[in-house]
């Protein structure tokens, strides 16, 4: 406004970041510019190929530059639905000078692969992300909580930092004998590769025990590695620790080389993914099945003793479904259980929504929460609840804990989260727990 005949130019605030303090709690929170355009420096002053060239110098990093901006990836990106992120947006940011290796966006991708599924230019975030993250890890630019998991994995061979000697403690509650190969060597049909969350997480242990009972009931000859088992570490690889992954792989391959088994069966789609896709690149070839793939052909032999009378919806794990094309085995199992009515969520199978756990997301919930309105798992649980189901069935060890937390935080306590094998076990034993 002109005052006393003197023109005063309007004052424009241009800040990348503002800190807002609550007058009630006194807590401060950062408002990144993306939440409020008025806080952005408005004018873009440069573009360039340099950011893409730096990515292209990393193996697997070249395809981000191929984006031609169609935007098909953004609506299917699970992160964009709860925040401000997507491969197309990342392309523009890098083109306009943002250093991806130093940007928080680097850690938001869950490598769920839904973008690659729809991308006409095959911009491959499944390769770009580990490449760029690997460079950031090399430069020591890693979110603290993820670094903590890397260190635990390195020291203990599991992401939880648990005692390796207690890796098979869960077997005591199984109610059936579980053979440990170190103690009882000799040929075995199925090597049950338990992986971290079924070994140590209380809810995972329940699933492991259920799986042992189901295998026993079906007369499957199986054994585990017990204390000798280490994580395959595929999510650590996708989170940027290729070196850690490869060191683990050499350990795992050496251990596997000492035993005589016909096939590996694992409940973890992430470990499964690495055993199927990464291990062969290094000359380690095994016959590998996800546990649902082992059990699906055996449904006719399953001695079901109870009808569960429940409505169930099923969440496709990204690394079993999109990454490895297995959509039917879990459904075959669910549909075989007497009394179960399977209802699908809108996003299922090829366009299933990510739980947020992949690509290191499992260990970045705190970091990610600074950039998203809610967790991906919360978003997914709402979808599951909308189907009217009373059970959300899963078959990835990451998901039980994620979805149980999300069911509570979204007020959907009535929605039970159960691994498929727990439902099979319950129906075969003839009495339920839930």
């Amino acid at each position, binding site marked *: 406004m002109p005052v006393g005949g003197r023109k005063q130019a309007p004052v424009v605030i241009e800040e990348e970041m503002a800190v807002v303090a609550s007058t009630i709690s006194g807590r401060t929170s950062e408002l990144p510019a993306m939440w409020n355009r008025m806080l952005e420096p408005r004018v873009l002053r440069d*573009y360039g190929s340099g950011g893409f060239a730096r990515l292209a110098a990393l193996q697997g990093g070249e395809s981000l530059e191929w984006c031609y901006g169609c935007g098909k990836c953004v609506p299917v990106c699970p992160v964009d639905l709860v925040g401000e992120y997507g491969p197309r947006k990342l392309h523009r940011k890098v083109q306009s000078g943002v250093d991806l290796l130093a940007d928080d966006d680097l850690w938001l991708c869950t490598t769920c692969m839904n973008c690659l599924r729809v991308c006409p230019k095959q911009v491959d975030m499944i390769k770009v992300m580990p490449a760029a993250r690997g460079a950031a890890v090399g430069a020591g630019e890693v979110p603290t909580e993820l670094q903590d998991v890397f260190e635990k994995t390195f020291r203990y061979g599991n992401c939880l930092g648990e005692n390796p000697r207690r890796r098979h403690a869960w077997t005591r509650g199984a109610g059936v004998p579980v053979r440990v190969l170190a103690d009882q060597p000799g040929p075995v049909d199925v090597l049950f590769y338990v992986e971290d969350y079924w070994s140590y997480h209380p809810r995972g242990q329940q699933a492991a025990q259920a799986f042992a009972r189901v295998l026993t009931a079906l007369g499957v000859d199986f054994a585990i590695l017990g204390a000798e088992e280490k994580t395959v570490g595929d999510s650590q690889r996708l989170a940027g620790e290729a070196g850690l992954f490869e060191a683990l792989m050499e350990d795992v391959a050496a251990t596997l080389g000492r035993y005589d088994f016909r096939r590996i069966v694992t409940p973890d789609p992430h470990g499964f993914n690495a055993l199927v896709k990464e291990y062969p690149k290094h000359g380690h070839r095994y016959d590998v099945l996800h546990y649902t793939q082992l059990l699906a052909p055996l449904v006719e032999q399953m001695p079901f003793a109870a009808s569960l009378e429940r409505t169930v919806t099923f969440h496709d794990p990204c690394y079993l479904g999109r990454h490895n094309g297995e959509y039917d085995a879990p459904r075959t199992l669910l549909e075989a259980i007497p009394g179960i009515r399977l209802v699908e969520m809108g996003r299922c199978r090829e366009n299933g929504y990510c739980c947020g756990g992949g690509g290191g997301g499992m260990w970045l919930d705190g970091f990610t929460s600074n950039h998203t309105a809610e967790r991906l798992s919360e978003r997914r649980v709402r979808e599951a609840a909308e189907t009217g189901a009373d059970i959300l069935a899963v078959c990835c060890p990451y998901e039980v804990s994620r979805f149980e937390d999300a069911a509570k935080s979204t007020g959907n306590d009535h929605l039970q989260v159960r691994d498929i094998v727990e439902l099979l076990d319950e129906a075969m034993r003839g009495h339920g727990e839930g």
Partner: protein
Amino acid sequence: MTIANQAAPAVAVVGGGPAGLAAARTAADLGSPVVLIERLGFLGGMPIIENYAAITPHLEPAEVAMGRMITAVESHPLVEVVLDTEVTSCEGEAGAFTLTLEGGAGGSRKISAGAVVVATGFQHFDPGRETQMYGYYEFPDVIALQDLEAMLKDHHVVRPSNGESPARVCFVQCVGSRDRQIGNEYCSKVCCGIASKEAMEVRQMLPDCEVFIFYIDMRMYGYWENQIYWPAQEQYHVQYVKGVISEVLPKGDRLLVRGEDTTMGRPMEVLMDLVVLSVGMEPSPGTRKMASVLGIEQNKYGFVEAVQPPLDTVSTSRVGVFAAGAALGPADLEDSVSTGAAAASRAVALLRSPVGA
């Protein structure tokens, strides 16, 4: 040779560019005598007139590619090439036209022709008419596609202001096209491809030069998508930015291009050493003049109107007169030679068919 004493009626082809050369060659190959009339003293049309370096999409040198067409026509026993000559009138009707030719060594003379093919082409849009503030005539370092073509042909891409190699070059798309104010509401069809092709050539010639293309939407139809657009982006690292430029301002000895980055929703102000305006196509003066001389309908933009589109691309409002190439509207080389051949075969068919074509 002279075709005056041939028994069969001749096909007169007006214009010696790609479309006219294709028409002349096709009619002659079909056994018809041809008179090819060119206003200038040489054949080849715009690729030669405007010093195009390499032609889209395979980057063959324009002189080599056009040279092949020219040789085939000049050496054809059924073709008479008449240079430095314009058609000033056309009397009669299909099968028995009389054309008056002016210029050349012979002064004014009349020839007879059974059919006429008009292949008088386009001209580049004059950026001086642009309603934006691009400063084509104001800033030496603002040039147009064909200006860069000439520099590429010389293997000497520099800033005209100081003769130095540019470190940053941008292309501004849709200059003079898709614009109601200017009156050119159509898309000129080739500029996205030509700009991308030139961008690749600049990157080849000046590997350290950053090249940008500011666009409304990239229109790389058919194979140009994977022949030009994708290699430009993926192999030559040309930076495509969605959002066209509204004005060019001087800033020191460089140019500040201003526009909106539409996917970011933010203004952009970026410094450039060389700004290339991707000018569109307008009917050439020859096309406007020949449409009038031949009495054929033009559309509101001045291009020759094809009267039975879309399945007949070459017939005009006057029976026996066919049109080809960019005289019909924006066309790439492939379109131009295709309609050239189509017009010629329709002309020959007309002359041979008892019921007309």
